[in-house]
């Protein structure tokens, strides 16, 4: 069985699945719109949660939150199910496919056989859509892939029941109701307000203050943890920022694209100006990644380079603080 699902590649998995599922259900909404309304831009530093033996830094909110916020703000109804039994999880998915409902799944990355080996880590917050089934395979639309792909029945089962942090427990979701008239403008404003609140939160490890906190830690790492660990931590920051779908620089560009779209919908010229500014901030994040990668590639032992990197990150934090204050004012 196969549903008439159209695959569109996206930059980030959760946005992509949401956008693709909604498009399939007749609501034409772009990836940046999903990201902006769902308040996908975020920053949090969680020192006690270790990912690959380095402290976790996330540039995105909890898995599932973007789509949930988007749904709430647009008045959509999403059905979400988790399963304790694997048999029931398979049954529910097959039932959906029989009824022509492509379904979003939260899965673990480690057993996704179509990914290059280097990408396979125990990271459980990946999202994809299953849109059909054959005797041996499930038909998969993974939004970060250019084309659709497949997984065998056993493989899909494995990724649905991956274990560890954010274990998906067979999680499946799909929209069940989309209102005819949606309040896009209201939703955009709510999404922006939420992002400004998150990024300017008066908490030391969240948002702009979180970025600043990490920047200050970078200065201390080579002394406190030794060069080897400091380099490993630095690589982790870049990997989280650029590689494993939690996005730092790339997310800034998606957000800038969102502001550009929002500027037209809200007829607000200021947002267009801010979109350009966000693009510049995204470029700064990329410069930071370039510099950081140089440091740990050359295994530079000078403490000085860490100070330079730290200052670069502090400059980004300053820019973002000013930016989100302006953004908050722009939609008042």
């Amino acid at each position, binding site marked *: 069985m196969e549903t008439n699902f159209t695959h569109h*590649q*996206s*930059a980030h998995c959760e946005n992509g699945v949401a956008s693709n599922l909604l498009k399939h259900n007749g609501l034409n909404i772009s990836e*940046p719109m999903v990201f902006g309304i769902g308040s996908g831009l975020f920053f949090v530093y969680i020192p006690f949660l*270790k990912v*690959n*033996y380095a402290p976790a830094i996330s540039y995105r909110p909890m898995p599932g939150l973007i789509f949930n916020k988007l749904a709430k703000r647009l008045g959509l109804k999403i059905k979400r199910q988790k399963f304790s039994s694997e048999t029931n999880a398979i049954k529910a998915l097959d039932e959906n496919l029989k009824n022509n409902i492509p379904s979003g799944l939260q899965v673990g990355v*480690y057993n996704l056989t179509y990914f*290059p080996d*280097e*990408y*396979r*880590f*125990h990271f459980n917050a990946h999202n994809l859509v299953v849109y059909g089934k054959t005797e041996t395979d499930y038909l998969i639309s993974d939004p*970060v*892939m*250019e084309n659709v792909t497949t997984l065998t029945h056993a493989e899909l089962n494995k990724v649905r029941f991956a*274990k*560890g*942090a954010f*274990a998906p427990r067979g999680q499946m979701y799909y929209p069940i109701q989309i209102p005819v008239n949606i309040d896009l403008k209201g939703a955009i404003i709510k999404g922006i307000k939420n992002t400004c609140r998150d990024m300017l939160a008066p908490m030391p490890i969240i948002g702009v203050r979180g970025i600043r906190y990490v920047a200050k830690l970078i200065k201390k790492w080579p002394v406190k943890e030794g060069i080897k660990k400091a*380099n*490993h931590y630095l*690589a*982790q920051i*870049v*990997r989280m920022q*650029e*590689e494993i779908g939690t996005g730092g620089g*790339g997310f800034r*560009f*998606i957000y*800038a*694209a969102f502001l*550009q*779209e929002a500027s037209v919908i809200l007829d607000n010229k200021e947002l267009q100006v801010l*979109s*350009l500014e966000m*693009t510049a901030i*995204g*470029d700064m994040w*990329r410069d930071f*990644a*370039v510099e*950081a*990668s140089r440091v*740990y*590639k050359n295994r530079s032992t000078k403490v000085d380079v860490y100070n330079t990197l730290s200052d670069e990150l502090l400059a980004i934090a300053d820019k973002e603080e000013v930016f989100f204050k302006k953004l908050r004012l722009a939609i008042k």
Partner: protein
Amino acid sequence: MKTEEVPQDKGNLSNKNMKELVYATDEKGNYTTALSTGWEPKTIALSNSIEEISERIAIAKLQVENNEVSPICYYMELCRMDIGVLSSYVGMWQWRVKRHFKPKVFAGLSESVLKKYAETFNITIAELKQIKTS
């Protein structure tokens, strides 16, 4: 980032003929999407992590050969797991998994416990007991 600045470096993805989608601005400053084959800083960050893991696997292997830890520790590293991930896969407390790292404790494990580990690592019980030392 402008579309012409979208990096087309050789990356881990290009080896598999895969490209990723990025958002960038066109000549008029409007946002559009473009495909990228990879970006060097990302490739470096990734290979750094892979190297880190390979080092840990090598250390674990040596420790197993010197009878300092049980093969469970080696296979855990080989499967890119940490104790938290492994303990949730086998459904045992972390302190129990850590205890099984001791060669003496490992030697006395029951078949059913060994089976849990073997299934998690996708190997046979025989392979679990004896790691390849080639």
